[in-house]
């Protein structure tokens, strides 16, 4: 008898099949890794276990008994707890308040009641090696601490089956190791732990058994001891992975961008960028590796003119930038693929032409005497859409109806079209499937071939390592290491990302 058994699960969203007759089992006292690429259907599977989705067909058995999980509440009652990728925490409530949120007992909650609860929660957290301040509001906690709150929340509610969705994507390697220790403690307690991930290293480090999913189907389930990273990678991607993209070697040209001791203020008097220096030469891809929240966002924003800087110099194409101006950046030839394309890159309710016009509508080709050249722009838009192979029902279709990959193609069409010298690309492949990711990588490589530069900011270390001529590691608002293509090593980068190799002189 398995602790968890999911049989022939089918899940459809409209016409899209997210899970296609998937079978999955996990035992008690086991750490089970559910491995797959983004969009392979792992999270969907787990969300059915935690009651967020209901399966279109198929059945779920817990401890051998068939169950119906209709809501997260049902799931909690059955002992299923899930730590979502986007934490389900109320930012303004304290850690303890978040943990007791779902508790039904005791209407009155005076200071005493709360103190007792805080003590209880602290005890539970320490037992599993999880430390965080229980009485501080969530928004004051670090991302790692917030994740611990989430884990304690599931434990507090008595979960026997604990699911973690991509738990390490927000952690430093050190924090990740700590998390793995906690998972092992849970295993020792006889709990079933399921971890979804696409990172092979972690799977090999922590899992007992591994299930690999690809494109909504279950490919294989094996014991860790019977497999290795190469095989897992092959199962996951469906073909041998190329560790590095074949970029033709070329000598980079003149220095295009020179950033010197840049300082950018963050909230509460902290510094988001703290004396950051870097330089980019024409025709090279420079990757920025780092754990989220170490200044990547601000670096991209300051280069594209969105936020001002306090100290330091930026020199682009031989000319110093004086103040933050988005228009100035656009006109200087800096293009921007923002982090969240629907949030800040595209206007979802507008059509394709309007979205393509974003940066060029001021030019004489697109507008004359203050009036847009409508017919001409439409033809131009049509050409771009064809050139970049954007699949759309029509040129006036609101872009929110396009798929993620096509939205990203549209965005690249716009950003590449106005012939940039430098492209700042932030998480350019986030949420894209394998094919679309490949397409984006090809576009970036093509830019490089055309002697343009790319600053690639990505949380996906593999992506950074595959594409970059040089890798800069960012930590605490400054560049702490620089590694050339070929000399990059995951472990070393990981150490720098965690801020463990602090000394700068060693780094540069």
């Amino acid at each position, binding site marked *: 008898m398995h602790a968890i058994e999911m049989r022939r699960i089918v899940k459809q969203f409209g016409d899209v099949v997210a899970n296609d007759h998937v079978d999955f089992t996990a035992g008690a006292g086991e750490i089970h890794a559910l491995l797959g690429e983004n969009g392979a259907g792992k999270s969907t599977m787990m969300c059915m276990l935690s009651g967020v989705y209901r399966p279109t067909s198929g059945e779920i058995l817990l401890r051998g008994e068939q169950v119906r999980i209709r809501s997260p509440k049902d799931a909690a009652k059955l002992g299923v707890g899930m730590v979502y990728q986007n934490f389900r925490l109320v930012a303004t409530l304290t850690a303890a308040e978040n943990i007791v949120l779902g508790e039904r007992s005791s209407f009155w909650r005076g200071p005493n009641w709360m103190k007792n609860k805080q003590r209880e929660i602290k005890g539970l957290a320490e037992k599993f090696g999880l430390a965080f301040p229980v009485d501080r509001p969530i928004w004051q906690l670090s991302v790692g601490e917030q994740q611990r709150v989430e884990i304690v929340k599931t434990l507090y509610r008595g979960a026997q089956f604990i699911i973690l969705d991509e738990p390490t994507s927000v952690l430093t390697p050190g924090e990740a190791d700590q998390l793995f220790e906690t998972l092992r403690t849970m295993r020792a307690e006889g709990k079933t732990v399921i971890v979804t991930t696409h990172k092979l290293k972690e799977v090999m480090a922590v899992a007992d058994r591994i299930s690999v999913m690809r494109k909504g189907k279950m490919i294989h389930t094996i014991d860790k001891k019977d497999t290795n990273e190469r095989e897992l990678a092959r199962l996951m991607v469906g073909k041998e992975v190329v560790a590095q993209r074949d970029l033709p070697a070329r000598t980079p040209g003149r220095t295009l961008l020179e950033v010197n001791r840049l300082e950018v203020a963050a909230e509460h008097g902290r510094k988001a960028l703290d004396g950051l220096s870097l330089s980019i030469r024409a025709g090279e891809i420079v990757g920025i590796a780092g754990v989220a929240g170490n200044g990547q966002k601000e670096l991209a924003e300051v280069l594209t003119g969105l936020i001002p800087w306090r100290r330091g110099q930026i020199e682009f194409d031989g000319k110093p930038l004086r103040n933050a101006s988005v228009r100035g950046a656009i006109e200087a030839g800096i293009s921007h693929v923002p982090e969240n394309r629907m949030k800040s890159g595209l206007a979802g309710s*507008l059509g394709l032409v309007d979205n393509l016009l974003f940066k060029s509508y001021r030019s004489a080709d697109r507008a004359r005497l203050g009036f847009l050249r409508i017919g001409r722009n439409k033809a131009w838009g049509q050409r771009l859409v064809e050139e970049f192979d954007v699949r759309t029902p029509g040129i006036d279709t609101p872009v929110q109806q396009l798929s993620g990959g096509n939205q990203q193609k549209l965005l690249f069409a716009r950003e590449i079209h106005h012939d940039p010298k430098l492209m700042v690309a932030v998480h350019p492949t986030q949420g894209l499937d394998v094919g679309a990711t490949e397409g984006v990588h090809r576009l970036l490589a093509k830019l490089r071939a055309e002697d343009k530069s790319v600053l690639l900011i990505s949380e996906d270390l593999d992506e950074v390592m595959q594409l970059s001529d040089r890798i800069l590691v960012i930590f605490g608002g400054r560049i702490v290491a620089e590694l050339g293509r070929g000399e990059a090593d995951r472990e070393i980068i990981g150490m720098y990302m965690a801020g463990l190799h602090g000394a700068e002189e060693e780094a540069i």
Partner: protein
Amino acid sequence: MSKIQAASALPLEPAEAPRRRRFSYRIEIDPSGTRNPWWITPLSILLALVLCGIFIAANGMNPMTVYAKMIKGAFGSSFGITETLVKAIPLLLCGIGVAIAYRISVWNIGAEGQFLVGAVAATAVTIWFPALPIYGTIPLMVVFAIAAGGIWGLLTAIPRTYFQVNELVTSLMLNYVAILLLDYFVFGPWKDPKGFNFPGTPMFNDAQTLPALGDTRLHFGLVFAIVAVVLYGLLVKYTKWGYELRLIGANPEAAKNAGIPIKRHILLVMLISGGLAGLAGMAEVSGVSHRLMYGISPGYGYTAIIVAWLAKLNPIGLVVSAVLFGGLIVGGYSVQTIGLPSSISNMIQGAILFFLIAGGMFGKFRLRRNA
């Protein structure tokens, strides 16, 4: 529906025979929901009339009779139609102002106050420069009114852009300030000494009066309104500036990434929005009442909100709904003769807005049969 393909890599047991299920329905929201069938709007108006009919019936009247009388009063005679158009002028001008602000999600509900200060400023010209000839006075009144309305609009826009103050509260507070300002002048320094204590300024002379169109009460303000709506239509659809507004309205974050200075646009839009309402105020005093007086607006600024909403910010829609609501106001007056308060038209307006909003949302829902 794409066919689900069977057979996963490791089949365990044969699938269970499908159970019989009763048909059930579920309601879905269409994420990109842009579909909005044409009949939603008339149906919303009809339902609003039904709701108000209940209140009319509660007052002991036959709703059908009342509505018939209102329609007849507003559109049944050339006098009625003229009156309706006269009311439609300020509604259209204010409505354009409101609509242009709504385009970038600025909720200007201060058109009433902007209208009033426009009227006050136009009157100030007649008080301060009484002897100017017509080609001097009228343009000066227009400039004063637009400037005053525009400044009133800026008083809302500046707190919004630089102090993160919700423009709804500010613009509404300023409406009351404007009312008090107007009251001060017509009860105080500008009161007509020969007016038997009537709270109003002396009547304007011919040079201060907008020319009438033909022999009717219709005045030159109609030309202002038509020019404004044509410009509005051109601006939002065909110009760079209109494109920028469209972008800000659709996604301000993205607009920022496109290098569009949002704050400056908000200030400019509120300047224009207020200026248009101010112009409406000028047209009203100079073209209709020929003096500034207490209670000069029957709530044009508020009705303009509904005008803009009904029109969905579309220029032609604005014209149609301005006329419709002008008729509603006139109809409201005409049922006073059978003992109903004219505020009946305000009630109907509010109800129409309600049902329009609800109707607009129904368009996004789908009823689906569970498979």
